[in-house]
């Protein structure tokens, strides 16, 4: 059974290209451009991994990461944080994410991280 990955990315083109990439690697992909209630989204889709942008309308990537990692049922779900900002500029250190991906990234690197976290 294919692993399900939830993607939150406000740029349609980036979201589309990541969806295409993961789909081609046989993952079950759910993509949204924004969310105001990540737990509901997770409850609804029950992903095996969450890949989120940092700067988002609604909840930002840090809040999404914290919400999952502090949730009694979903804290085991690996979270990958993406941002085009400089890592220091957004101070992403304390959100409890499992991996960090700087935009623009190599497709192979994204796939490696995802497969590594899901293995």
């Amino acid at each position, binding site marked *: 059974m294919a692993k399900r990955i939830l993607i939150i990315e*406000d*740029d349609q*083109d*980036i979201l*589309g*290209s*990541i969806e*295409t*990439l993961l789909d*081609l690697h046989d993952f079950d992909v759910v993509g949204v451009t924004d969310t105001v209630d990540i737990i509901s989204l997770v409850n609804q889709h029950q992903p095996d991994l969450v890949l989120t942008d940092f*700067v988002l*309308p*609604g909840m930002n990537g840090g809040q999404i990461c914290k919400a999952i990692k502090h949730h009694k049922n979903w804290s085991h779900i690996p979270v990958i944080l993406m941002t*085009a*900002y*400089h890592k220091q*500029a957004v101070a992403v250190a304390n959100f409890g994410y499992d991996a960090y991906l700087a*935009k*623009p*990234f*190599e*497709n*192979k690197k994204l796939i490696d991280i995802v497969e590594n976290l899901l293995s």
Partner: protein
Amino acid sequence: MKISFDRNLKIGYGFSFIALLGVSFISYMGTRQMLKSSRLVEHSNVIVRKLDSLISVMKDAETGQRGYLITGRTEFLEPYYQSPVKAHALIGSLQKLTSNDNRQQANILNLQQMVSTRMEAFTRNMELKKLGKNPDLNNMLAGKKAMDNLRKTVATAELHEQQLLNAELIQYRSYVRYVPYFILASVLIALVVTALSYKGVTAIIRDRADMQVQITNKERETAELNDELAASNEEMTAINEELNVSNEELLDSRQQLTNLNAELEQIVVSRTAELALSEERFRMILQTLPTIAWTNSPTGEVDFFNRQWFNYTGLDFEFSKGSGWQSVIHPEDVGYNHSRFNEIIASGEAGEFEIRERRHDGIYRCHLIRMAPLKRDNGQIQLWVGTATDIEELKQLERQKDDFINIASHELKTPLTSLKSTIQIIESMSDKLSPEKMNALIERASRSVNKVSVLVEDLLYMGKLSRGQLDLKIVQTDLAGVIRESCAYFNAVSNVEFVIEAEAHVSVPADAERISQVIINFINNALKYASSSKKIYIHLSVNEMAIISVRDEGPGISLEHQPFLFDRYYRSPDGKQASGMGIGLYISAEIIKRHGGQIGVISKPGEGSTFWFSVPMVQTSGHHLVEHQEHIS
């Protein structure tokens, strides 16, 4: 010491004198008594001798009578004839000598009778002889008896006289006997007192002698000192002479110095006046500066502030002087200011640093502090000049620039991310892609490239704007055509519906490419910030100017943010969607401004937004109309 000495002397002499007086008195009285007793003895001796003489006279008379009676020769009667006279003379003398002694007077009277009786006996014998008869025996016996009685009476008188003398002598001797003791005692007391006095006086004299010795020694030392002093005095005199000479030289030098000083003072006075004038001028210059300025003494105390200081801080000089000026420094900058200020003062060289200073309304603004020493010809620091330039806006611009670079970088990375990812999919997984999917990927890649090119275009445009290199290619332009061209750009990448209401044949002198850039920017913003809007209305009308507006049905913009929308780097905080570089509307405003038109927004929260601009119908800007028309293809 002197009192003691005098007292001892007085005591000694006093006792000696009193003792001498006593001894003299006692001696005088003793001698007088002795003389008196001697006279008494002599008196008694005289009486005794006269009594003895009376016996002798009576014996001589008896002897003479006897010789005559025996021999009958008259020459033997010589003593006899003298005897009555002598005897009576002696008795008369004795009566006088014993006139104050009744017993002796009685004795003398008896003696007189006895002498008379004897003499009568002699006379009868003598008469018998002369008559040639023999002496009468009775008469003889009576004569003898008278003689014996005479002898007895004389002895009695002598005894009485002796007793009388002895009694007198005993009385006198009992008195005289104590005289030597008195004298001896007085002499002894005098001796003791004198000895004691002598001892005291001797001690005092010895002390005085010691003192005298000491005085002598001191005098000798004094004399030696005097000698030394005399020697020193000579040296001093010599030195004094030298000093006098030196003094004269000094006086000469001093006079020269005084003259020199007077010249210098004159120079200083004129220089000070010049300096004061120059300082006054200098401060007047500082007053005219647009920045805050002040002066410090060489050691750093502030002694002048220009009026900009008082205007900015709202403080007065009394409060500012001393360390009062430090009160306007931001608490976090106080330590840094202190150390940098002291470093610069200590270095004696110009320096600068940045701190935040509080304005009169309580707002802190960043200032660049510059301090430079004003030096005299000899290199000595006359004063420090300080200026505080308000660089708050510069700082904000710097921050904006940093933010902009950060944001621009982010904005570029976003289309690049999708572009890169899409191209990598096409490259590595083309065998898994259907033709439809491949086309979709190529379209996405194309959109991303367009986004990048728009961003790059904007960035280049910003660069040109900031360098003042924005050149417009003004030609007569059909605005409706420009609107259509712009919308066509979006039709390929967006599902939004454009509703265009445009008057036909509105031709204005404009740079079609730049006008299109403004319209695209408006539409882009509508798509980004009013994504819920299904339609975008574009309107072209002509009043005095040609007016183009782009209206969306989005959430609208709050009034408080509207005035800043066309500022450089301003990004709307509405919707929390921090996207875009904040330069699109700024560039649009600059383009329209250069066309001589106006730009603006009409919006209310909840009622959508209308962005509009106008361009003159005829040429008003400095740009010349180019002869041939250019259109965006």
